[in-house]
């Protein structure tokens, strides 16, 4: 009996050791997944900053010498700056650096833009911070930041959409496919028909400066080998992986499928789209999905063409449940394909049956991914 007992103990101990090894392997892999995730986060914030800096230079040049050419260049620089930034939205929704209590998300990408808080609008030519030098004599970054969070609450007056508004203006849809038709003369002191031209230029430059300050902050939070968020993030792989999965699920389901697409699909209100001034909303959808795809597959193509690739959430899932991984990848493919097939502008697409079907298909694929993310979560959370 004694012998039997000790053999049992031995076997038990052995099987425990094997189990531990397996767990260790998995924990190790998780660490690698998160390392790679952090690398992608950092690279995409660095790219966003680079593109925003290019935009900052172009905007400053336009304000100095407004003309058709410099104005077009400014708009193109804004559109280009959106591409890397939109892909970073996948890192939201878990109170990470971008949107914890101190996070700059509201300053950078807040929506809907409070147009009349910033500049003239159709129906009121004298409104906005720009047109109230009596209230706000000096246009400084500190002022805009303060006005944006006046009394602890966000007035959306800065960020990408503020710059977009100041470049395109309100989309009045004179012709159905028009975006906003603000003219470069809004920045031209000599011939402008609107007031406070110089203040508008100052506002635009200041908004670009603020954006870069915020992107710097995010880059710092995710830099390697520093006492920063990234260090804590990597030190707690189990918690961090859960956060990443929860955030992605929330962004795909409630935010992308719901907030960004289902709402406008249901209301059919043309300007209830996120890039309503520039009519760039279709690209918002495409690049946001790309960002979520990046997170799942552990890949990111940098602006300079370099590919970052490492062990991914997809790899973890495939090891345990190949079918689930295949389903996820197939759904991503459907979402990407449907989103790319929507014929812009988005504010017209929501009114046409043929395009509505594509929007509905994108929404459905995103909803399905979000539901499957729950399974992914349960599968690899421990």
């Amino acid at each position, binding site marked *: 009996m004694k012998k*039997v*007992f000790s*053999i*049992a*103990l031995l*076997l*038990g101990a052995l099987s425990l050791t094997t189990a531990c090894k397996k767990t260790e392997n998995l924990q190790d892999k998780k660490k690698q997944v998160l390392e790679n995730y952090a690398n992608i986060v950092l690279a995409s914030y660095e790219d966003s900053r680079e593109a925003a800096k290019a935009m900052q230079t172009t905007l400053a040049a336009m304000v100095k010498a407004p003309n058709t050419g410099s104005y077009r260049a400014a708009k193109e620089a804004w559109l280009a700056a959106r591409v890397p930034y939109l892909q970073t939205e996948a890192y939201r*929704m*878990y*109170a990470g650096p971008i949107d914890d*209590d101190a996070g700059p998300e509201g300053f950078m990408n*807040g*929506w*809907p*833009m*409070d*147009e*009349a*808080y910033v500049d003239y*609008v*159709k*129906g*009121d030519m004298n*409104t*906005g*911070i720009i047109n*109230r030098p009596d*209230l706000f004599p000096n246009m400084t970054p500190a002022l805009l930041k303060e006005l944006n969070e006046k*009394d*602890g*609450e*966000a*007035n*959306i007056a800065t960020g990408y959409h503020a710059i977009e508004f100041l470049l395109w203006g*309100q*989309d009045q849809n004179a012709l159905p496919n028009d975006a906003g038709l603000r003219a470069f003369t809004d920045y031209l002191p000599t011939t402008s028909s609107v007031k406070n031209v110089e203040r508008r230029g100052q506002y635009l430059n200041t908004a670009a400066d603020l954006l870069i300050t915020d992107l710097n902050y995010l880059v710092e939070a995710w830099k390697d080998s520093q006492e920063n968020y990234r260090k804590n993030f990597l030190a707690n792989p189990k918690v961090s992986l859960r956060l990443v999965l*929860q955030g992605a699920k*929330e962004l795909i389901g*409630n935010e992308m499928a*719901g*907030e960004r697409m*289902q*709402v406008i699909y*249901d*209301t059919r*209100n043309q*300007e*209830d789209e996120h890039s*309503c*001034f520039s009519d760039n909303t279709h690209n918002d959808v495409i690049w946001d999905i790309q960002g979520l795809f990046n997170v799942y597959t552990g890949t990111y193509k940098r602006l300079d063409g370099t590919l970052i690739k490492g062990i991914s959430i997809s790899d973890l899932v495939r090891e345990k449940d190949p079918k689930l991984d295949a389903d996820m990848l197939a759904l991503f493919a459907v979402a990407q394909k449907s989103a790319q097939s929507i014929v812009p502008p988005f504010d017209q697409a929501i009114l046409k049956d043929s395009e509505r079907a594509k929007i509905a298909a994108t929404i459905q694929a995103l909803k399905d991914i979000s539901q499957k993310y729950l399974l992914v979560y349960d599968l690899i959370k421990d």
Partner: protein
Amino acid sequence: MKRPLHLLLATSSVLFVIFVMLVSACGNQNTDLLRPEKDEELSGGNSTVFDVSMNAFGQPAPILDAKQQTDFVVGNSFFKLNWVIAPASTTDRDGLGPLLNAQSCSACHLRDGRGLPPADGNTEPVGLLVRLSAKGMGPHGEPLGYGAYGGQLQNRAVLGLKPEAQVRVSYTEKVGQYADGTPFSLRVPTYTFLNPQWGNLDDALISPRLAQQIVGMGLLEAISETDLLAMADEFDKNSDGISGRPNYVWNEKEKKTELGRLGWKANQPTVEQQVAGAFLGDVGITSPIFQKHDLTPEQADLDKLPNGGQPEISNKLFEQVVLYTAALGVPARRNWQDKQVLAGKGLFLKNCAACHTPKLETGSSATIAAQANQIIYPYSDLLLHDMGPDLADNRPDFLATGQEWRTPPLWGIGLLETVNGKAFYLHDGRARTLEEAILWHGGEAQKAQKSFVGMPKRDREALIAFLKSL
């Protein structure tokens, strides 16, 4: 080949013995209360949700049909995102103000959670608003607005306008101790108003109110009036010291007086009117229920500013926000089988359940039809109780006296910190901990408060552990 099986059995029996030893080591407490009730963790019946993240309060009840799911998503958007100054490109979302407390519902109910009192004495509150009134009653029994201000102080305004006044909250500490000598300190708030624009506010009756978490509103609305009235005991006929009574309030849509069940003073009869009232008073958005801005005759000039349409939130969108508000699911309990939590539950049932009614059933009809006939655990009777002079706002609200408050539902209370980072309790957020919230209880709840003060530390901790599991 049979040998490994024996080995396995031997191992399991060893483990079994150890297991039994462990179990019996913990088994020397009152056994009746140590058993969880079947399904008690499903606080919202079929509308229970299982998210324990910072988004725990934002999940739809899982019983919505396809149309309701869409309405929920759209409603969420108009609840969450800022309203903007009219006119704007986003025509569905303009019409903010002119006077306001917040730019969106979620500014105060962040992530559908609870508002926070201001961080210090120099900060303008968000999520804590101040109701005003003069002595007397309006034609429907409602509080009379105060002078040129009306019934609520709007401490914000759109660009170029001045807020009605700014609000400052300061606190003094009041110390006490538990029976076992452990000291505690409660903070007593004082409210001051800066830069009043419409005359002085010295004589105004004021009632500061914190934005509440809004889970389970549809379920509360679905409790039958008969069941609520059955809990009332206005003249304390059963001599338990507790005399819950109903508030009766004006229903603007039906143009009649009805049972009030929502809000800190049970001054709202329906989710629909609660939402419409908040849109109007807090954000400055007119709706199908309240089609005119809440401006006094003295403020009539403000009504000439551009508005966002009439009403500013369209009928369909308004209904979608109402659906959203009614359909937010109630988080399931956590750790409900935990020994300490069960011990705390026993103490709660003994001391607190006369007002914080644990279990109710929704009626046979509900705004969201699937929410009918559900066993739910709101820990409230939705009735008014005298809470004593220390908690009083001394501002009557329909039948509620200045000392009466509605028993607030406690479901979700253990997740406030998860959702909002911090948690403050009671109608004005004066309590920094659940202990402080209990210690403030007076009036009908004085007995419960006393027994809490008298509890040994272990029991106090068990009670709190129970509350945190809600």
